[in-house]
């Protein structure tokens, strides 16, 4: 009996963790957006915050940037993901793509963005490789490649991280869509690989990954850390400007920031509606398109290399970017256009050693705490309701779809009122809101795939539910639990906005340290912190993948494949 109560309590606690902070945060933003924030003297409803927002000369550009970069990054990421799967599913190369996914997913957005910035900057490896023989450049050209006013670098930085995410979600959806056999049937009917997949499988896959796509769209429109590193600066994106007002010493700007946050939320809702409408329109058109019978066999010759090229480009760009970060952190003198620094030194690393360890420790502490709570809640929720209803499923995505910048400032106000802002515990709980969905989603499929007859066998041998859970189910799912833990840890390490706003500047992690350097020109220092930011989750991922192999080295039945 106790077991059932604990599991049910965990289920409800998980739902509260997912929804309460978001709803409270939104409430804490909507008030000030209309002038109501007693702590700052706002006791009357007014439209002054909106007048302040409208008076900001960058508003039109910021709105355009949010919409264009968000929709473009999402459309591009989805198109590339579908192309890669359509063109290469079921081949040996595709296996390699799936193996490269885990490290790409563990990589924080900001680290990937820094790597990309280093790679494509006028003084980056691409320019160096082409200079001076092809470009004639003897010194870095004065070009605005990173921080370009159109936000293209920002779009690129989002795409390299969102394609791996959507690929993972697609891979999880493929078994339910019977994709390999459907593609085979289409090919037997004379269709090309890509065309057959797009007509026979893609509609089902897109329906399955609708919520992840919405999360990508909302994230791309409102991201702060990637925009600080790669996005335009004059004016910046709306989300960056809201953060600027929120953290401004002039507290009166908080009202304007809140109005901006509500506007950002409205923009995301409008874009989601637009996307949904377009999706329905395309779905209707695709019926005719599929029924027309064009086989598209010749298209494979173009589209298959294109898909492979896209996957390779993402992998190489991220890989070279990270290598560049690592090299810069050790670089002594490094003249343009030399491909390699003249001297290597540990100078920056030694200089940072004193701050480095405490920050790493705090990062790991917060990430471990959030991950452990998320694991416990996910296990309890899955025990209580292995197959939750539609609304519970949608709730899992709530913190991923409501933009962080729209509700975290409100949540930070509540933390301030409760006097818990700036404490590691509050930051850990704020991280939990975003760690929980990923841990739950990673764990849910293997949890449901577990052979329940093992549990029945154990119960028929006299084991109570609690004993079945602890001695049979959890040990048998060790690998899945560790992967979920690694995903949770990486998610926490990557959090910028929750750490900054709930931590009130008093809790620093490798990510807040690294992103704080975005506007500085100190490549070596950025290199050190970005390398730490990528190394920490990667190390945990490697550990979590290696541990089951070690634990169960004498248990053949616990291996996969």
């Amino acid at each position, binding site marked *: 009996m106790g077991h059932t109560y604990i599991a049910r309590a965990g289920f409800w606690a998980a739902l509260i963790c997912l929804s309460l902070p978001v709803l409270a945060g939104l409430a804490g933003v909507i008030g000030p957006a209309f002038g109501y924030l007693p702590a700052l003297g706002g006791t009357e409803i007014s439209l002054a915050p909106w007048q302040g927002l409208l008076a900001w000369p960058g508003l039109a550009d910021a709105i355009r940037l949010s919409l264009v970069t968000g929709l473009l990054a999402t459309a591009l990421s989805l198109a590339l993901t579908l192309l890669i799967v359509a063109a290469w599913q079921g081949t040996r190369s595709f296996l390699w793509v799936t193996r490269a996914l885990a490290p790409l997913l563990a990589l924080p957005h900001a680290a990937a963005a820094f790597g990309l910035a280093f790679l494509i900057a006028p003084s980056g490896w691409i320019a160096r490789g082409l200079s001076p023989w092809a470009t004639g450049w003897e010194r870095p050209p004065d070009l605005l490649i990173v921080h370009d006013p159109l936000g293209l670098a920002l779009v690129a930085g989002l795409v390299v991280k969102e394609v791996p995410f959507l690929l993972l979600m697609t891979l999880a959806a493929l078994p339910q869509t019977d994709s390999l056999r459907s593609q085979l049937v289409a090919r037997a009917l004379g269709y090309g690989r890509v065309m057959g997949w797009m007509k026979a499988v893609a509609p089902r896959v897109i329906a399955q990954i609708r919520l992840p796509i919405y999360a990508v769209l909302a994230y791309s429109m409102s991201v702060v850390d990637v925009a600080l590193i790669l996005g335009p600066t004059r004016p910046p994106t709306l989300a960056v400007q809201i953060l600027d007002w929120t953290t401004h010493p002039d507290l009166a700007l908080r009202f304007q920031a809140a109005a901006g946050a509500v506007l950002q939320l409205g923009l995301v809702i409008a874009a989601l509606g637009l996307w949904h409408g377009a999706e329905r329109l395309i779905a209707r058109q695709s019926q005719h398109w599929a029924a027309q019978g064009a086989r598209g066999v010749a298209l494979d010759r173009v589209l298959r290399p294109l898909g492979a090229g896209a996957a390779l480009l993402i992998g190489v760009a991220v890989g070279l970017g990270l290598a560049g970060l690592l090299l810069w952190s050790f670089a002594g003198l490094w003249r343009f256009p030399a491909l390699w620094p003249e001297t290597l030194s540990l100078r920056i690393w030694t200089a940072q050693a004193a701050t480095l360890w405490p920050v790493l420790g705090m990062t790991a502490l917060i990430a471990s705490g959030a991950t452990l709570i998320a694991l416990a809640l996910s296990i309890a929720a899955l025990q209580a309701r292995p197959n939750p209803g539609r609304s519970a499923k949608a709730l899992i995505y709530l913190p991923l779809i409501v933009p962080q910048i729209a509700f975290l400032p409100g949540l930070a106000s509540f933390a301030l009122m409760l006097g818990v802002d700036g404490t590691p515990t509050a930051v850990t709980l704020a991280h939990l809101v975003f760690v929980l969905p990923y841990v739950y989603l990673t764990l849910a499929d293997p949890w449901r795939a577990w052979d329940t*007859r*093992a549990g*029945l066998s154990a*119960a*028929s*041998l*006299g084991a109570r*539910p609690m004993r079945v859970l602890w001695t049979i189910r959890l040990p048998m799912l060790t690998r899945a639990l560790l992967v979920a833990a690694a995903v949770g840890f990486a998610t926490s390490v990557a959090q910028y906005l929750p750490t900054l706003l709930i931590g009130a500047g008093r809790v620093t992690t490798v990510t807040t340290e690294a992103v704080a350097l975005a506007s500085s020109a100190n490549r070596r220092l950025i290199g050190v912190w970005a390398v730490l930011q990528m190394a920490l989750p990667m190390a945990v991922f490697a550990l979590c993948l290696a541990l089951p192999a070690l634990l169960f080295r004498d248990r*053949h*039945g616990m291996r996969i494949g």
Partner: protein
Amino acid sequence: MSLNLHDLRIWRGDRPLISLSRSVAKGEVLTLMGPSGCGKSTLLAGLIGALPPVFRMQGQIALNGRDITELPTHARRISILFQDDILFPHLSVGANLGFGLPRATRERARVVDAALEDAGLAGYADRDPATLSGGQRTRVALMRALLSEPEALLLDEPFAKLDSELRAAMRRFVFERARARALPVIMVTHDMEDATAAGGPIIALSSPREDLDD
């Protein structure tokens, strides 16, 4: 004293699936045969208290005079063997057997070793279950079930995956030990040879609605 099914009925939604009133004596093997989908395995799930939610059951199950109809699986003292042996892959052979042994048992290692010896697997305690042959795994699964001191045994096509030579030997192994402990046994099978080897009453189940459609 035995396993008594009083007017047991199982529905899937509104469709009646099984209706059975029967008593299985100690040491007797009751065999249930029938086409797939007639509800044989569903009945076994109902007997151990693990009926999937789409099904509904009425009636009473009594084991040695105890009414166990409403008891949770772990408290019924009914063991079950599936077609796959379901040895726990993360535990050694010895730990699998130890899992079945009641908590209060003294000299656990000795009891486990004796069970292994009885199964012709002396010295296998530290082995990884994945390294065992099909017949060895079935024997370990049976010994694990018997060590839990059940009062009844259910067999869900337990020999279906073994080749025919091994199957005869495994039948003998299972039935002998069930009889020696005077356990009432219910077996579900597709195989007529299984049924005759069991030497007990045979009930042929059918799916009534489908029959009418033919």
